[in-house]
């Protein structure tokens, strides 16, 4: 067993874990943070994307034991303190950047990593930054619009969805 210390969504925690515990399993099964979705579980789909020290990482492809001392942000850490949707989440809702929503936590986390590094990305940069996130519903158009809107560049393209 390995002793693990992490700051998850701003809260310090410690745990004893098996070496083989993946970050995705640790977050979901031990901490109950089930917003981090396990889609393919083969590091293809990006539904399990979280931030590790601010960088996008697929939680299904990293050992929790290798992350002792880091800061992790999950989708549960993206809402505003009062529980309302954070601005990236709100942009996804406004632009209808999801259909079934399964991939959305990963999309939001990749967006957070992108905008932290590049606050005003071009559409090409958005698409490049989402190459590790697969959505099987939307065709990506409204996801890209949501990211552009979240960066304050909505250019009147939001709310194109049919309701």
């Amino acid at each position, binding site marked *: 067993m*390995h002793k693990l210390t992490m700051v998850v969504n701003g809260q310090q925690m410690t745990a004893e874990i*098996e*070496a*083989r515990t*993946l970050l995705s399993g640790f977050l979901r099964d031990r901490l109950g943070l089930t917003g981090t979705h396990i889609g393919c*579980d*083969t*590091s*293809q789909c*990006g539904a399990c*994307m979280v931030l*590790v020290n601010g*960088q*996008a*990482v*697929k939680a299904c*492809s*990293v*050992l929790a*034991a*290798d992350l*002792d001392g880091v800061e992790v942000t999950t989708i549960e850490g993206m809402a505003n303190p009062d529980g309302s949707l954070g601005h990236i989440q709100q942009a996804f809702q406004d632009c209808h950047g999801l259909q079934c929503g399964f991939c959305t936590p990963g999309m939001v986390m*990749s967006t957070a*990593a*992108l905008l932290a590094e590049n606050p005003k990305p071009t559409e090409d940069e958005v698409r490049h*930054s989402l*190459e*590790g*996130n697969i959505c099987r519903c939307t065709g990506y158009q409204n996801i890209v619009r949501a990211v552009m809107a979240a960066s304050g560049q909505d250019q009147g393209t939001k709310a194109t969805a049919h309701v």
Partner: protein
Amino acid sequence: MYDFNFLKPTSVADAVAALIDEDAQPLSGGQTLIPAMKARLNAPGTLVSLTGIPELVGVCCAGDTLVIGAATTHAQVARDAAGYFPGLAALAGQIGDPAVRNRGTIGGSLANNDPSACYPAAALGTGATIVTDRREIAADDFFQGMFTTALENGEIITSVRFPIPQASAYAKFVQPASRFALTAAFVARYASGVRVAITGASENGVFRWAEAEAALSSDFSAEAISGLSASAHEMIADLHGTAAYRAHLVGVMTRRAVTAAG
């Protein structure tokens, strides 16, 4: 995946000592090894993480050589090498996706020697030197076929030394599902001549395209190799492309790389 012992040393010496155990394997970014372990294709008794060793991380320019620590992530190379060796930085920025680049390392990629990986093309295409805990290995001697290298059991890469070319570029035909190279070419021009390395195409892994190197060394232009075609012999054939298709791509991607290098 099966459980294992996990060690995270903070020095190369401690890592090498831990890897004397025959059932131990090094773990770098884990973007290949962990999925393989989850699929039970690999089940080491002990994993020795190399991500907690400061001396293995960093990009440093020394004259006409760029030295990259083995545990440096692709994302860091894409960022920190751009001012010294833009062809290499651009290659690093095309590996996988952002999350893979945030974890995957140059040493891990070279040690794995996936036949479709990007970094082997840069190492072979520049005549880089692979530095390990015990010796230095020329790239021409390092790659020994699909998933096979000159590394001994327990030997770890500590850094890679790239001679910085006058001009270089990497042209990659992406296999969009895996984001590996379906076929890709790294071209580098030096005062002494041109080197061309091809990845993703051969069943024997990364290789140098000697005919193109000879033609480009006397005339560095896409036209100089327009009449050359690579042989389909021992090219990879799978559902993504036939051997003949990959052989064709060798020429196409090499010409694109030459044009991009300018």
